[in-house]
């Protein structure tokens, strides 16, 4: 009975493949049959799957694109017994070979993927999508072909080049063609030289990799051209590396600024050594997490708005906790900096453990909205969107805070109280409330920083600890009581750190920076921008 079944299946397969061969247009001499490709795809061995993908792309089967897409998304299933291949679409199953519906097929398991298989899929999809109607798809395809450096795609590439209208895509295709030409051993010297200059014009690290690989080329002229190309690209990249470092420095500086700016109020303006500052940042990050959780459960469409919604909430949460701390603990300790330090340190431990008890010790997932993910290219400089937004956000927070202190009645009272408490009190300002709200403002700003930091760091109870030392460093270096000092200090430290890191390594770089700050504080104990006048004595 069982043998009958097997025979039947074998017969069916044979009939099917005959029919398939009859249907497909007369295959070219080197073109493999799609069935050979499908048979290898339906396998547990990565080697077979990889070979199957290449065969499928070369076979010219019209269903190849759909099958490869399904495979890339892990939706391609197979049955080991009879090598049936199926594509899963939601709950529906279709036969990968024919596209016919397959109701109730069982015993299927997914075709497995690993990096080798994924690379093969990328290359195969590249060669299949070169003629796609959408320019974006063609560009991705050309990039994939460039990376694959497969000489077999050359005819397809030539055909695509002839029809290409988009200049950018055309250039990528030419670069892909150059890469493939250089990879094939039989290319004449003239064409190789042309390919080298195309790659030199591309000028990125991948072009560099290919040109470096030409150092053993049989033709002297090609070797020389490649060597010249390598030097040219290296000079350009060294220059770009400096620009890149400067950008990384600004980006790190903006993170330092965000972390420190709340402290510039509580420590800088009010003179409270606030060790619980980092925990305010953490509370802001956890507020972001809660907002995202609520949005995920109730209104997934609003996810892109989760960060703008979280900003005011984080400000309120951290600000309220700050006011509470000031009213309950800190106000009893004004004028006693050591006790304040110990008390706020204790508060920071309490807050950490409280969050750990409520949310658990492990990291919480805070997602990045689409505008925060990915990178874009600016004159060969790769800039990540997330970092760019954080730089913009840090500057916006800085300006807003300046505006509050300089242009509002509350800011005026705050400055009056810090400059001369008794005089301010005599003028009818309720100094205790100004103290509480100023501390609340500093804490709230720290909470807002937490929203931004949740995008680049772990949201865990320890989040704040990583920033507290750096924050104090920035405020002290910039000059206590001076917001502009904080800005300059944060950017200086960020840029200096990033220029030191490639040469000295991350660990030594940080040490060097600390040594520099210690020496600087020896020379100028009041920081970069020291306050002058009566405030200094207060």
């Amino acid at each position: 009975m069982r043998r009958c079944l097997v025979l039947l299946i074998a017969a069916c397969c044979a009939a099917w493949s005959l029919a398939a061969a009859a249907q497909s247009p007369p295959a070219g001499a080197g073109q493999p049959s799609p069935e050979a490709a499908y048979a290898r795809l339906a396998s547990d061995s990565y080697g077979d799957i990889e070979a199957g993908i290449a065969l499928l792309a070369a076979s010219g089967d019209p269903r190849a694109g759909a099958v490869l897409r399904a495979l890339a998304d892990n939706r391609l299933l197979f049955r080991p017994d009879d090598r049936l291949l199926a594509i899963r679409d939601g709950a529906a199953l279709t036969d990968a070979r024919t596209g016919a519906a397959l109701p109730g097929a069982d015993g299927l398991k997914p075709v497995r993927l690993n990096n080798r298989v994924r690379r093969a899929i990328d290359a195969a999809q590249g060669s299949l999508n070169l003629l796609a109607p959408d320019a974006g798809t063609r560009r991705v395809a050309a990039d994939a072909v460039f990376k694959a450096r497969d000489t077999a795609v050359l005819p397809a590439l030539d055909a695509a080049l002839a029809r290409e209208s988009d200049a950018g895509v055309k250039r990528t295709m030419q670069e892909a063609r150059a890469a493939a030409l250089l990879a094939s051993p039989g290319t004449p010297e003239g064409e190789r030289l042309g390919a080298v200059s195309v790659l030199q014009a591309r000028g990125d690290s991948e072009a560099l990799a290919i040109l470096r690989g030409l150092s053993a080329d049989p033709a002297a002229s090609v070797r020389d051209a490649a060597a010249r190309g390598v030097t040219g690209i290296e000079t350009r990249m060294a220059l770009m590396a400096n620009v890149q470092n400067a950008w990384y420095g600004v980006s790190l500086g903006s993170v330092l600024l965000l972390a420190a700016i709340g402290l510039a109020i509580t420590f800088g303006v009010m003179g409270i050594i606030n060790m619980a500052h980092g925990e305010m940042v953490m509370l802001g990050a956890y507020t972001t997490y809660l907002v995202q959780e609520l949005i995920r459960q109730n209104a997934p469409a609003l996810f892109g708005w989760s960060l703008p919604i979280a900003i005011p909430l984080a400000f309120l949460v951290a600000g309220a906790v700050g006011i509470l701390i000031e009213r309950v603990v800190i106000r009893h300790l004004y004028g006693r900096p050591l006790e304040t330090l110990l008390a706020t340190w204790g508060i920071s431990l309490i807050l950490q453990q409280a969050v750990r008890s409520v949310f658990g010790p492990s990291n919480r997932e805070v997602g990045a909205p689409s505008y925060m993910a990915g990178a874009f290219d600016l004159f060969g400089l790769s800039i990540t969107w997330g970092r760019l937004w954080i730089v913009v956000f840090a500057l916006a927070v800085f300006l807003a805070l300046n505006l509050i202190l300089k242009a509002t009645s509350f800011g005026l009272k705050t400055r009056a109280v810090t400059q001369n408490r008794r005089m301010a009190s005599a003028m009818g300002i309720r100094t205790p409330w100004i103290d509480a709200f100023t501390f609340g403002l500093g804490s709230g700003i720290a909470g807002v920083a937490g929203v931004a930091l949740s995008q680049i760091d772990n949201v865990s109870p320890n989040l704040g600890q990583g920033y507290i030392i750096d924050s104090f460093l920035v405020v002290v270096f910039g000059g206590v009581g001076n917001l502009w000092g904080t800005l300059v200090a944060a950017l200086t430290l960020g840029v200096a750190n990033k220029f030191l890191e490639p040469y000295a390594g991350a660990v030594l770089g940080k040490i060097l920076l600390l040594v520099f700050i210690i020496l600087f504080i020896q020379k100028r104990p009041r920081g970069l921008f020291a306050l002058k006048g009566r405030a200094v004595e207060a």
Partner: protein
Amino acid sequence: MNMTWKGWLSRATVAGGLALGTLAATAASAQETIKVGILHSLSGTMAISETTLKDVMLMLIDEQNKKGGVLGKKLEAVVVDPASNWPLFAEKARELIAKDKVSAVFGCWTSVSRKSVLPVFKELNSILFYPVQYEGEESERNVFYTGAAPNQQAIPAVDYLMKEEKVQRWVLEGTDYVYPRTTNKILEAYLKAKGVKPEDISINYTPFGQSDWQTRVAAIKSFGSAGKKTAVVSTINGDANVPFYKELANQGLKATDIPVVAFSVGEEELAGIDTKPLLGHLAAWNYFMSIDTPANKAFIKQWHDFTKNPKRVTNDPMEAHYIGFNMWVKAVEKAGTIEPDKVIAALPGTKQDNLTGGTSEMLANHHITKPVFIGEIKDNGQFDVVWKTDGLIAGDAWSKELDGSKDLEADWVKLNCGNYNTKTKKCGGA
């Protein structure tokens, strides 16, 4: 008056009953239980990893008690919290052994904490089961290492990359402390012995909690553009991993271009992050939650029932505790006593089925045999096993790759020595 009198009387009765009950309970427990110490941080930075291990130990002890305990006595867990504070680990260990009289301790995560409790275990002669993968170069009479030694994790991972991914250029990226430094030293020696040129190896260290990876990722990108297939071997610790992978994804480095194989990233660490950008990156462990065996399925179900949370993940150090605890139970029953000297003597040679379908054995060097798996990160935070070793690998206490430890051998059965020098024929190191 009457009311007050009644009230006083009833209160007195309740108090008396309570006191009696407590007395009875203490007396019973003093007679009938065997105490097991659990020394994992429940607060502070390491709580993120160690809390789970405390829970799994409570589950294992609970399970054993349902089966009737050990030597006819119930087991009693004594949980202390060393709060991620290394000196406190030693203090709490002393408290467990001297005051609570525990028969064995299961605990520690970081190497620093292990080194900090070592003198206590030696002085008071007790037993420690250490469940985490570590840098090796150690074998102590009182410690049983159920996590992976470097030859059970790092070396097979590098072999896989060389064979399957044809990697020729290596970035060894680590956090700056003892485990990455020693592991990278071993890997560097191993790679050079395999013919990798020094200029094809780049070793870098970053501080704990590094969150700004822009420069490092850019450097890896340019190191990888030399025309040879490049991979990153990551011994980055704990929280620094998430920003690292995020930066890789943001700068467009995919696993198909430059794969990263990590030794400290498991299911627990992935639970808190969006794993889409990590797709295809690798991890090397001796256990993955996704491994489909009946034993593993039963273990996961038991874990979900015990924690009343069907989403809790299982990971490699949890399996190490599972193996270690069951080996301890077997050794105690074989020795017929909880006396440390006899249990230490009974442990080598003890066999225990692991959760992935093999049988692990405690070796004379106090390490165990384990299978090695390479898993690729999937988008659901689990791993897909893409490769595994043919059989179980025996843990080396002393690395065969390093000059200082090549000639050392640990054998507590025949030689009764943790660092016997095979050249000088003496116990006591190089």
